[in-house]
Each structure stands twice: as C-alpha cells, then as structure tokens.
C-alpha cells in the first residue's frame, strides 16, 4: 500500500457539521481520501464516526459543510447519488433482506423497476467473488447465512455497483479473528485495484494493521491525523480518549470454592441458534470466568440456564453443591445470582419507567414492598444510592431511563445487580456499545466484585476484554464449550481457532 501523497483525491469532506438536538455529532469535520489508500476513522463510541459516514452516504443531511467525490459535489441526503458517484457502504447493521437470495440482494435497486432483470448479474457476481476472495453461494437465502458471509454479500453489493470508495463501518465487530484476516486480505486486493477504503473502527491493532492513515475523532471533532507507520497504539489511544487512560487489568488471585457447576448440560437448538451440547462449567468464588466466542453460538442458552430462565434438558445444575429443586429467575435472584443482561434495552430495563422503578425491578416484591404495598421511600433511597455509588449521570431518580446514554443505563443495571452483594454474577456483554470511560468503570466494578469473593461469568465477543479480565477462559462454538484455559496460556489466534470451531474437531478426533 503506497503512501503517495500525489495520488488523485477521490473524496473530500469539507467542514461537515451535524447536530442532533443539543448534541453536536460532527463539528466541522474535514477529511480527504486518495486513490488506493485505506484511511481509518478512529474514535470512541459516540465520537461521530458513523454519523459522518451516514452523511457521506446520504442517510443524514449535514447542517453545514460539503462532500466532493472525484471533484464533483455530492447532493446531500441522497443515497442513490452517493451510489452513482461510486461510494459503497458496508453498514455495521447489515442492510440485507433475509427473505431474498444473495443475488437478489445484490441486484436490488440496480435495475429500472419496470425493466426485465439483467441476465449478466450472475456472471458479474461470480467474477467479483473470485477477484476479491469473497466466496458466497449466489442462490443461498441471506437469512440462512452466517454473519461473516453476510458481510461478504454487503461488500459484493458495493463492488457490483462499481464502487470506487468503500466505507466499512466497524466491519470486524462481528467476525472471528480469522474472518477478519480474510476481510483484510480482500481490502488489500481492493486497494491494489485502485479502490479507496474508509475503515471505521475502535480497535487499535486492526487500524495499525490495515490502514495507511488514521483520522481520530473525539466528541465530533478531528483531534488528530497521523500516518499509521509513524505512530503506535498508545499514542492513538491517547488521542481517542484525550489523555492517558489505562483499562483495568485483573491480577491473578487464588480462587475459592465452586459456587455453581454445570455438569454435561444440554439444551435443544432454537432455530438457527444452537443449544448447549454437553456443557460442563465451574464458577468459582473470587474468579472471573471468561466466555469467548462469536455471539449466537450458545451463549444465550448458557446465560438462560445460569440466570434461571431455562432448565437443562439434560445434565445437572449444581448450586453451592446442591441441585436446586426449582430453578426460576426469582429463585436464582434469591440464591444470590445477579444478572447483567446482554441487551440492556430489551431485557435489562423498561424504557418508560423511571430510574427508581428500574432500580427495584428485581426486588420490588421482596425488598421494596411491605404487606403488599410498594415502599417507594426505600425504593427511591436505593435508586439514589446506586446513582451516587455507581456514578450514574442523570438529572435524578425520576428520570425515565430511556433518556440515559447507554453507559449510564448500564451503570444503573450494574448497580442494581451488585448492590445486594451477589455470590454469582452473570455479566453478558457488559460493556458492549459503551465508550472507553464507561468500559473502564464497568470492568473495574466486576473486578472489585471478584475481589470480594464473587464468582463472575463474563460473556463477551471482545477477545481483548476476555483476555485482560478473565482468570480462566472458555470458548463457545456451536453450543460446545472448550476446556478451561488459565490466564495467559492462550494467544488470541489460538482462541480464534477455537471460536471458529476447528479445535473442537481435533480434540474430538484425538
């Protein structure tokens, strides 16, 4: 990848400003992209990366500023014009119709609505798949494809329209390390053919590996623009968060007794989501057990068992050395299991309830009621305690939770879970979608809970998070659980092979 500053400028964003109400998502952001280069757009969640790209692609209209593609101004708010100008976008949330085939998704919108369909489409897709290393069956229904395959379809869609500028929004968030490598190989092929790429990410090592240049956004402003070969991860991280910030790292500790044990637990498959396949797992006091894996590989089924939402179809669940007679969410709560659900919006909170009501959702029948009447005074005091103790930034306990940012919502849920001093903590994707500051806070709380003797089950897709926090690591793939690996015994690449399911076959064969 050459860094020829004399190369043709293919894209120029000039002083783009976009406001959502009181929030300025982009503040006079300028950016240029040259032929054949990869520019990484780096920043925390909420820094304005996706907003900027949505303006470029015409999903949003900027309040000020202009976009030029190949020297021509791009009309605002018009995805069709962006496509015609050669801009292709691979959205973070794929824009594919699951009921259509791969080929149909690619063809969509490329032909006049009243014309006959174009016969050469299949050949063109086959040629592009070959040239760019994007293998996918053109007649497969998109709804049945894996996440990695869907991403390939998204890229093919852009290439099919002869995109010259490819925007990838957090493309590796859903991929295994191996899939990510394949994606980078595709990107290298693309730039070798003169395409230009904007790569949105907050993962520093990827940015260092794939980008020629880095534009760092913070609070909607460009705070730095550097050549990747002239910088390092620490400098980029400092730019991103505006100062040195170290993520917490749990130090090793001697674990205590086993608090919960799953013995050969299986659950039925649920549609495309695999159930558990003879999973055995021990959660020990004073230990963080990390569960790595691409989501949708049985983590949800496991979380349901631990949290009391489901019973094993086969195998046993042991709690403090006994098999519980009944196992329901209420029973789990009563026995000291705390839950930080995967989806804070749908499972963790009720959007139109205020903070007090949300804070007592798990205890309104026990701790916050007297003789069948709600004890609102105690509830409010509890909510205020969480707000203060867990640094929930909000106008007050009567605020509806819908109005909080993701990080603050998560802190309230964290406080709700940890306040009763649980023995077992189920933390399912606890920092997903949070900014770096909130991530550090949530992770530090989990470590503190471990240090006072709780058993923590940390489910995460982020290998970095798993590896820095966990005392032991398991990997899930297709409902199967890997053996436990002690801290520091596995590299990310090795865990990646387990995530892809390859190592399970070897272990089985051996």
């Amino acid at each position: 990848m050459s860094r020829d500053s004399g190369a043709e400028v293919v894209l120029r964003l000039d002083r783009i400003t976009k406001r959502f109400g009181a929030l300025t998502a982009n503040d006079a952001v300028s950016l240029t992209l040259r032929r054949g280069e990869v520019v990484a757009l780096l920043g925390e969640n909420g820094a304005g990366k996706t907003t900027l790209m949505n303006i470029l692609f015409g999903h949003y209209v900027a309040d000020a500023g202009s976009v030029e593609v190949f020297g021509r101004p791009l009309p605002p708010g018009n995805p069709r014009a962006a496509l015609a100008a050669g801009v292709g976008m691979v959205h973070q949330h794929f824009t594919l119709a699951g009921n259509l085939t791969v080929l149909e998704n690619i063809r969509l919108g490329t032909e006049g609505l009243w014309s006959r369909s174009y016969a050469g489409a299949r050949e063109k897709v086959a040629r592009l798949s070959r040239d760019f290393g994007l293998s996918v069956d053109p007649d497969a229904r998109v709804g049945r494809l894996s996440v990695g395959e869907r991403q390939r379809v998204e890229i093919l869609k852009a290439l099919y329209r002869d995109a010259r500028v490819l925007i990838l929004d957090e493309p590796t968030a859903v991929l295994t390390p191996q899939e990510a490598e394949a994606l980078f190989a595709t990107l290298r092929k693309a730039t070798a053919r003169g395409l230009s790429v904007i790569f949105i990410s907050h993962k520093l090592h990827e940015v260092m590996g794939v980008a020629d240049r880095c534009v760092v956004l913070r609070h909607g402003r460009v705070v730095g623009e550097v050549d990747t070969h002239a910088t390092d991860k620490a400098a980029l991280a400092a730019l991103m968060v505006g100062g040195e910030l170290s993520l917490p790292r749990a130090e090793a500790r001697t674990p205590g007794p086993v608090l919960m044990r799953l013995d050969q637990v299986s659950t039925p498959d649920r549609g495309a989501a695999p159930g558990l396949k003879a999973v055995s797992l021990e959660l020990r006091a004073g230990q963080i057990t990390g569960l790595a894996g691409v989501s949708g590989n049985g983590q949800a089924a496991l979380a349901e068992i631990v949290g009391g939402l489901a019973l094993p179809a086969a195998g046993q669940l042991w709690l403090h050395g006994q098999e519980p007679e009944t196992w329901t969410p209420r029973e789990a709560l009563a026995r000291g299991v705390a839950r930080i659900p995967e989806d804070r919006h749908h499972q963790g909170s009720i959007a139109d309830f205020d903070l007090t009501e949300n804070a007592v959702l798990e205890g309104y029948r026990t701790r916050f009621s007297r003789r069948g009447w709600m004890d609102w005074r105690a509830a409010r005091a509890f909510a205020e305690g969480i707000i203060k103790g867990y640094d929930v930034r909000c106008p007050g306990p009567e605020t509806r939770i819908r109005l909080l940012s993701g990080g603050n919502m998560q802190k309230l849920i964290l406080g709700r879970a940890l306040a009763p001093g649980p023995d077992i903590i189920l933390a399912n994707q606890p920092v997903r979608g949070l900014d770096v500051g909130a991530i550090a806070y949530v992770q530090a709380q989990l470590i503190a809970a471990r240090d006072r003797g709780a058993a923590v089950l940390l489910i995460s897709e982020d290998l970095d998070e798993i590896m820095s926090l966990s005392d032991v690591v398991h990997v899930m793939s297709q409902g199967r659980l890997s053996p436990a690996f002690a801290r520091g015994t596995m590299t990310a690449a090795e865990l990646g092979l387990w995530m892809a399911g390859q190592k399970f076959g070897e272990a089985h064969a051996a």
Partner: protein
Amino acid sequence: MSEIVDILISASFWAAVIRIASPLILATMGELICERAGVLNLGIEGIMVIGAFTGWMAVYQGMPLWGGVAVAMAAGMLFGLLHSVLTVPFGLSQHVVGLGVTLLATASASFAYRLMLPQVTSPPKITPFQPLYIPGLSDLPWLGAALSQTALTWAAFAVAGLVAFTLYRTPLGLALRAVGENPAAVEAQGLSVTGLRMGAVIVGSGLMAVGGAFLTLSAFSSFFFEMVNGRGWICIALVVFGAWKPGKAVLGAILFAAFDALQIRLQQTALGAVLPYQLFLALPFLLSILALILMSRRAEVPAALMVPYNKGER
C-alpha cells in the same frame, strides 16, 4: 353422503365457487401487495364497501360497467392514499389507521348513499356483467358450465397472475419484497422506501375496491350496506393462509369459496332440516380457522410488517 358427492361433482357448484372466490382473490391480492411492502392494511373492509358503492353508483348514473370498475378503483386508491400518508411518512400505528379508514370508508358510503338517493326504500338495480361466451370453451360439457363466468372473474385471476409475475420476475417485485423485509436494505441501495410503500398501499387499496365492486357489478346487481359482510377480514386471513404468496393465497380463496358454496347447498339437503342454518353459515369460517392454523405454522412473515421506517433515525 351421496348428496354431498352430487354437489361436489356438479358444474353449478364449481361455477359458484369460482364466482364467490373472485372478489376474495382481488382483495387478497391487494392486501398481499400492501403486506409484502410492510404495511398491514386494515382499511380493506371499508375500502371494499367504498368500491362496491362507488362502482355501482357510477353505473347507476349511466357509466359503462368498466367505467364503474375504474371509478371503484380510483376511490379505493384515494383511501389507500390516505392510509399510506398516515402510516408511511408519518409512521402512525397501522392498526389504528386501518380501522379508522374502514370506519371512515364505510360511513362515507352510507352517507353518500343517503345523500344521493334520499327517497329510495329498496336500492335500485343495474345490469351487471354477464357471463362471457368464449367460443370453444363455453361449448364444452361440464367445463363450459363451470367456467361460465363474467369478464371481471377472468380479470381477477389475471390480476393474481400479474401480481405473482411482478413479485417474482421483475425488479419492482424484488424491491417490494425487500422493503417489507428490511427497508434499510432498500434505502441503502438508493431506492425510496416511502415511495415503494405508498405505491404498494395505493395500488393494493385499488384492487381491494375492485374486489368490492365485483359484488355490485358482477355478483349482485345492487348495493346493500351489509354486502361486504366481513370479506375484507377473510382476505387478511387468506394472506396469512397463503404465507404471503399469491398462488397459495388464490388456493386459499378457492377453498374458502368452496366451503361457502357448499354450506348454501347443504342447507337445502336433508341435513338442513335437522341442523340450525346458523351452523352452516359458520361452517366456512370454522373450516378456514382450522386450515389457517394448519397452514400458517411455518409461514415466513415479512420481517418489517407493521414496522414504520424513519429515515435517519438512530
């Protein structure tokens, strides 16, 4: 038992089945288009009433029969426009808007009827469509009698074919199927979600109204207030029954029509003397519910059905 067999093999029974199925097919195709685009159109019942009324009134005022069909279609499209403006760009609840359109359309029909015919006690008759004579086909034994149908019936089946062809063989159909599944996919490919959805609801509503007009212009020769009588709701069920596929939906319409035609004939048999007639009237609905339960288990609902799309929303 032999009586039932006699009914089932008679040409007149099958002629009735096809006749009863025709308005259902037209309106079901209309609803199917709407739902494939992601909009549930509960205005269907009222739009059928409006179609029945305006088509009939236009012919009564001296227009040709096909003119009546066109007027009905235009009236339906007008209500479709109202429905789609409220549900698509404004993103209002499709249930509330749909029921509102049904109430408004039904009430408008009776209001206009009273306004235009203040003194009339029994509704005036028009000369409806007559069965089409098709050289060769109509002279065949049995089949000729079973297929002795009006031009509007033939049109209904042609419409079903056209909808299926458009949906599966044209880029427009591709876009329509995509917009009901994931509107973001359509927008990202540079097409207008609003345009597609509004277009589908307007055209679909036009077809519903033609389905209603079939009742006054082809099946009967006059307009009664209760004549649509829940057929619109049946069509919504037929779309589910057909798993949002035109071919299966047509089969469903024919099945329902067969139950309906059968129950009328069963009332006249020895059975009819024993059992209360209400039971026979309920039969097609009961059997439809049963068939619906059996058939719709694995149906793939358009994923974005009833989900409004707001461009630029986070």
